């Protein structure tokens, strides 16, 4: 079964993303929303971890949350896909269940 994991907290503040990456199986999807979108940017101290994870997981970031925070899409780590709410819904449908890392 394939899970969609949503993460909503900055990895600079909370460990939800780290735990999600530890417990997500190969082939799962991770969607960064709300404050977690900061983890999608390249050049942060978490970027290497995300890059390594993106080799075995599909990583997405919610565009409206990036825009709200003024985070430029051209600085997003290669391989992370920017999605809108319609695609968020589609991702929820495509996966067998959704785990929210609150």
């Amino acid at each position: 079964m394939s899970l969609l994991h949503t993460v909503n907290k900055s990895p600079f503040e909370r460990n939800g993303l780290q735990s999600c990456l530890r417990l997500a199986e190969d082939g799962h999807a991770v969607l960064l929303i709300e404050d977690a979108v900061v983890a999608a940017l390249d050049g942060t101290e978490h970027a290497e971890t995300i890059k390594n994870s993106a080799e075995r997981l599909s990583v997405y970031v919610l565009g409206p949350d990036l825009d709200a925070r003024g985070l430029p899409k051209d600085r997003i780590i290669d391989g992370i896909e920017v999605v809108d709410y319609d695609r968020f819904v589609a991702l929820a449908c495509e996966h067998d269940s959704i785990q929210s890392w609150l």
Partner: protein
Amino acid sequence: MKFGILVNEGPYQHQASDSAYLFTRAALAAGHEVFRIFFYHDGVNNGTRLTVPPQDDRNVVDRWSELAQEHSLDLVLCVAAAQRRGLLDADEAKRHKKDADNIAPGFRISGLGQLIEAAIQSDRLVTFGD
């Protein structure tokens, strides 16, 4: 696809309710069914009709009420969580001898069984929280 939505934080303090609202709207627009939206923890605060946000801000509570009316959504506040936090419908207010009730249109108060039922009956449960 049938969705159940769980909202665990109140309005304004957290983005959770906004994200849940936008997700729900997108799901409905795509033709999906939303079986129930369950409000738990501080999420029950989304259901007070006494909210008065500044004029230039969104009205999170009214927005839920309007969406519920438009799409016949089932918005459920957990009774135990609601009572702890001072959210009462007319019946509860009477039973507990309180002088007011404050539930917004489109919301109803019910038990946690409604959350479990939503989890079982929906194809997907999506949680928004802190």
